[in-house]
């Protein structure tokens, strides 16, 4: 009886401590920071959120090293001379031959964030939602569970999109966007996966898409600590390749002038914050009059949805094969 009372007292103290930490804006049950982490986080505080994702991979690597040190595992560089411990190795995604069941479809923008404008009163938010709804139908008919981050014209922050995807335990995250450039003649299809970039144009695009994220720096630190970067990056790249191939093969038929701009890594926050393989497809350019004209046609939007669907299905089929690694 006295033991139970002691246990309850301890539990109450824990609950109070957690609530006090939340009240003061502290992250969830933080580990005691080592000196190196304190220094690194001090540097992070000096960065804007838009620039911060670019540091994701360096930070995660360093944090992983911290963790390994705390766990008593020497990093690869420190292993010298004979040892019985193997050096840490990246885990192959092939170790996880799991089926793809639930797909989170994210129609970009919405509500007070209309996205890119096009000629004739067309907005990016309307087209992304229409294509997403068409994609949902195709995925549903094929037996996938589909979760939409928005079902109508409403404002949904990047943070909320990621939260919903994580909460719903999605297997894949597919974000649909349409690009826009001052150079109106440019036409192309780009598919992005999580990764660092040295391309200033991609950085600018990520900066634009990462606006109004709803994340604070404290949240971002938690994201850095929570990301399982290698497996997610590899899987995301393979998903991006499969979807991109589907988009290019399908859309070139009806739109021969469209350019294959390739699969690229980029630090989009919505891909950083989601805990599953994810991609962001910039399907074509609303700033181009011909693309904008085509995008007004429901049949063309259906083609885009079908192309996205074919890419997702190709990835899922490859993933569920014995020893499948998502390569398509």
């Amino acid at each position, binding site marked *: 009886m006295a033991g139970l009372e002691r246990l*309850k007292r301890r539990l109450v103290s824990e*609950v109070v401590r957690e609530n006090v930490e939340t009240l003061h804006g502290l992250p969830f049950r933080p580990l005691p920071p080592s000196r190196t982490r304190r220094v690194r986080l001090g540097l992070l505080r000096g960065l804007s959120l838009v620039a911060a994702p670019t540091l994701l991979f360096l930070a995660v690597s360093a944090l992983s090293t911290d963790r390994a040190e705390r766990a008593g595992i020497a990093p690869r560089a420190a292993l010298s001379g004979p040892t019985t411990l193997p050096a840490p190795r990246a885990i192959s995604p092939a170790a996880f031959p799991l089926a793809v069941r639930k797909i989170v479809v994210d129609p970009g923008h919405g509500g007070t964030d209309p996205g890119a404008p096009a000629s004739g009163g067309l907005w990016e938010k309307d087209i992304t939602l229409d294509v997403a709804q068409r994609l949902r139908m195709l995925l549903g008919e094929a037996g996938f569970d589909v979760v939409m981050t928005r079902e109508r014209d409403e404002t*949904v922050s990047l943070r909320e999109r990621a*939260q919903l995807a994580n*909460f719903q335990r999605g297997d894949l995250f597919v974000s649909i966007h349409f690009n826009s450039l001052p150079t109106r003649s440019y036409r192309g299809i780009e598919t992005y996966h999580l990764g660092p970039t040295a391309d200033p144009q991609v950085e600018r695009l990520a900066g634009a898409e990462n606006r109004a994220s709803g994340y604070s720096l404290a949240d971002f630190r938690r994201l850095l600590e929570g990301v399982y970067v290698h497996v997610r990056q590899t899987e995301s790249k393979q998903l991006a390749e499969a979807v991109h191939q589907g988009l290019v093969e399908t859309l070139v038929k009806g739109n021969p002038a469209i350019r294959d701009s390739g699969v690229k890594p980029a630090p989009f926050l919505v891909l950083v914050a989601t805990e599953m393989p994810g991609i962001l497809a910039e399907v074509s350019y609303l700033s181009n009059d011909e693309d904008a004209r085509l995008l007004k046609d429901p049949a063309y939007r259906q083609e885009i949805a079908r192309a996205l669907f074919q890419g997702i299905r190709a990835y899922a089929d490859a993933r569920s094969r014995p020893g499948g690694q998502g390569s398509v």
Partner: protein
Amino acid sequence: MTKKNEALRVGIDLGTSRSSISASSGARHVVESYVGWPVDTVARKVVKKSILFGREALDNRSMLELHRPLERGLIKEGSEKDEAAVRELLRHLISLVGGADDSRVFAVVGVPAEALRVSRQHLRNAVKGIADALMIVSEPFAVAYGMDALLHTMIVDIGAGTTDFCVMNGRYPTEDEQRTLTHAGDWLDEQLATMVRTRQPDAQFSIHMVREWKERWGFVGEPKGPVVVTVQVAGKPTPLDITAEMRRACEALLPPIAETMLDLLARVEPEYQERVRNNVILAGGGSQIPGLGDALEKMLLDVGGGKVRTVDDPVFAGSNGSLALALDASDADWEQLPS
């Protein structure tokens, strides 16, 4: 320093479908988690109130902007109305147990485990000011605390929006010891609605009717009798036997729940796994589905058997647990937690 008896202490279960409150005064209330505002001045004249709650809001929904906070187990960020709905619902619950403006109120609010995991700060901000001091805890933990089931126990709290799992190992549960599924009451309703529509495409019924059918006649295993409901077909009330659909929909909950239970069990220290298997507690509205506990016990036979019991008071198990926490927290604890 506040004297313990000066403040009303309350435990609240903020649920997707129903929210309940238990107070240190002995008062207890439950309301359906609906909040509605009249859509215009005409509606306001008809309903004669500026805000409606629970069943009253549901019954007058055609005239209201109706909100069900925590619809998907989370408070929707960016929606001021949803945040306002949570606050108004909590205020309403507190007013029901006599928490007047001039008395101090210390509240412990239990929320779905996942809501706490992913939007802890947001939740705290959303419920700011509803009490003089406030603690937020995960719902399955509150249930475990209220039942003194703190050691080698698994709580499975089947709500409307989420099914929450929590293994109690004599400490405050870590993220690894908790799980949340969206396979829960609302999901079951959707399954049942789809099955009935497939069977009778011209049948007209609402999701609210489906929810009532489930609550009244849901079952796993063998039915006590045929489940016959009345639907509208071309404007004519028509009886429809949905016994098979009801069974299939309710039994669809079993695989994800069993899979999650086994996953959590596998993470328990080997020497304690048998004790946890024999200490599974079902809570929440879904725990009331006849035959569910027996079916889960059968599934546990594959891993050496176990015991599944249902809480005695599913409506108030969560709020009673939160109240127990509210009473056990000292004045010094509460002083650290202004709302």
